[in-house]
């Protein structure tokens, strides 16, 4: 999978592209941490419109990052989930803490 970011005013937007499963999770975790740790923006959007596949491993990865950002009082949002990726997010209840927003 690929992960990159761009800055949009107060927001750091991180893009997840490809397939996020257990195999990709170590890479996803360390790449996201690197991007989030050095960002100075006050809010974070995780754009998953390029995510073709994600299983429940992705929930664990995002919750882990959410807890780190919570300590820094930086809210996180999820944008662009489609199909079964959106179903996994909805089922997990993650939208209650990382609200779904329009990309």
């Amino acid at each position, binding site marked *: 999978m690929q992960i990159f970011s761009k800055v949009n005013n107060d927001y750091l937007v991180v893009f997840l592209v490809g397939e996020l499963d*257990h195999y990709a999770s170590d890479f996803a975790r360390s790449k996201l941490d690197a991007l989030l740790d050095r960002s100075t923006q006050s809010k974070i959007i995780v754009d998953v419109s390029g995510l073709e596949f994600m299983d429940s491993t992705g*929930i*664990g990865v995002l919750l882990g990052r959410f807890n780190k950002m919570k300590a820094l009082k930086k809210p996180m949002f999820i944008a662009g989930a489609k199909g079964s990726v959106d*179903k*996994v997010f909805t*089922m997990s209840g993650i939208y209650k803490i990382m609200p779904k927003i329009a990309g």
Partner: protein
Amino acid sequence: MKDNEFVLTLKALGENESFARTVVAAFCLEAKPTLEELSDIKTAVSEAVTNAIVHAYDGADGKIKIKCKISKNKLTIEVSDFGKGIEDVEKAKEPFYTTRPEEERSGMGFTVMESFMDSLEITSKLGVGTKVKMTKTFGVVEPKENFEREEYAIARRNG
């Protein structure tokens, strides 16, 4: 289509997660599933295979057996491992329950399998292994199916 089946044995490696779900999806194509049914199946297979890699063998060497059968429009998938087994299956099925919170596992694996498939049956014996059996019956939506298969093929090619 004729009834069909396959059995596949894989090494319990993270690299094989994507391979396993792709093989099962490819096998299902003949039954003309919708795109949504296909991605539900891929997600459920990925959960089962990941469980075997992460929990059954603790990342050590081991084998995973995947048995798939299509009869009429009903798909049956069995994912078996020969690892340590699950102590309390009912507990393991609870949403958010995980034995590995420190690894940021979500504890949603069985919940996902249960809701993405029509049925889920887990048999496990300590020290012997675990078998996850899932079924899904494909809906019959005649006029749309060719288009959706084509769309899936295109998505795969571009993916």
